């Protein structure tokens, strides 16, 4: 059963579209009705805006994983570029933030690991995690 075009609802109205058609294809031409990856078990569209905004905002507190969760959660929003116009800015922002942060973190971390003592001198020994753990006795906490 094909979806008729009269069932198209614009996201700006903020209404929840309930689709009686079970044969949803995942082609990018059809507009997905649920903004979250959980589908009908996830959030409705108007709730999603608040959550997307909050995840995006809190991610700035050095929490790139929160941005990643945001992108994963609202994957249908990312994938279908013309839908959910209210949610999309936050999710795209999270994706960009995640890429930038990961690039910075990876570059620092790889420099540290690969450079090693040759590059850092004796501070490498002070910064590397297993020495820090030994120094502060972190393995005996429990």
């Amino acid at each position: 059963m094909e979806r008729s075009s009269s069932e198209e609802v614009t996201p700006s109205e903020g209404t929840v579209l309930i689709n009686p058609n079970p044969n949803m294809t995942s082609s990018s031409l059809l507009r997905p009705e649920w903004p979250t990856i959980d589908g009908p078990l996830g959030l409705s569209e108007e709730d999603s805006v608040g959550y997307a905004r909050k995840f995006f905002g809190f991610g700035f507190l050095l929490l790139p994983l929160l941005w990643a969760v945001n992108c994963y959660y609202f994957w249908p929003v990312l994938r279908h570029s013309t839908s959910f116009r209210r949610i999309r800015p936050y999710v795209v922002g999270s994706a960009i933030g995640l890429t930038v942060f990961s690039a910075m973190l990876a570059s620092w971390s790889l420099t540290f690991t690969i450079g090693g003592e040759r590059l850092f001198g004796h501070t490498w020994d002070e910064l590397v995690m297993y020495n820090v753990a030994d120094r502060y006795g972190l393995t005996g906490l429990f």
Partner: protein
Amino acid sequence: MDQNHRNTGILHTLGEEIIRIITPVSICMLSVVILVSILDKDSSLSSSVSTIATIAYTETTSDSEWDKFKGALLNSLVFVAVVTVVTFLLVVLFYFNCTKFLKYYMGFSAFLVLGFMGGEIGVFLIQVYSVAIDCFTYVLLLLNFTIVGVLAVFMSKIPIFVTQSYMVVIGVLTAYWFTMLPEWTTWVLLVAMALYDLAAVLLPGGPLRLLVELAISRDEDIPALVYEARPVIDPRSNATVQRRVWRDRPVNVEAQSRPQVDTETVGSSRNVEEGRVNELSVPLIERLRERGVEPESLGLEGIGLASTGAIKLGLGDFIFYSVLVGRAAMYDFMTVYACYIAIIAGLGITLVLLAVYQKALPALPVSVMLGVLFYVLTRFFLEDFVVQCSSNLLMF
């Protein structure tokens, strides 16, 4: 007949539901076995663990077996007593509607488990593999991991997959911590917890049963650490299933537009194909049990069906299954396989009983008893047999 229809429905959806609950349990057990095999090289760790579970008696290798057994028994009694007291406390708090406090406490204990225990195990792994990571990156990653985990436990608006993964991770970390207890204490503790679970859920005065009845009468969800399997969604309806604890018939958009009588007369093949669990009456609720760990987090133990028909398994069950298998791994892998089979069989039996009795059931007793039995049999009889056969080139 409604009864037949209900039974067919259960049988058909039970397969998928069983897989959706056995997979995380297996992943949890596998992770604990791997952690135990990697990190068990030095046994000096076990002597430094002092917790509630070893408060009565600390096992030393020089004691006789009878002394060890008595000490372990004492330890377990103390532990079970503490757990009982804390569970009754929980019932009282829930009775006085301190649900907010319970939620915050849950979040706090998740923070402790993920942050401190996770960090410590991470450091162990780094030391074993000499990973040259610097402390800033490590702390940043750990902080991220912990905070997102606390959010996953706290809020329900996180992707289901992320919440489920964090539940499994919390189970793995706590189970690994429990395997650091002395050997006799661990085994007697497992048996004691199985018996406690049986009593707490099924006896009329048991704290878990009281909690469950309170939750039913108020039509509320108990705030607890529970693994909830993804519910089987009917492809016809796609409407969000309402979340209520007690439900006789699903109240959703489809039911209003199409009366239930209609679906039943449409032909049994269609209903069988769909296997909608939420067409059955699902009067099941989860039970709450205290997981008496250092951070006394709320573990939900036992098995039940959520309002959507999805199976809920308490985190305490994950933990004790994994402790059993982890302890078996400290001896040999043969015991691991035997105990794994025993636990999965026990879980299957519990699920069948759940379908038959339609009430909240303890998930520990059957699995743990079978697991302990198989461990003893394997360690003392099967291993000898297999080794003798192999060394005589009879069977490998």
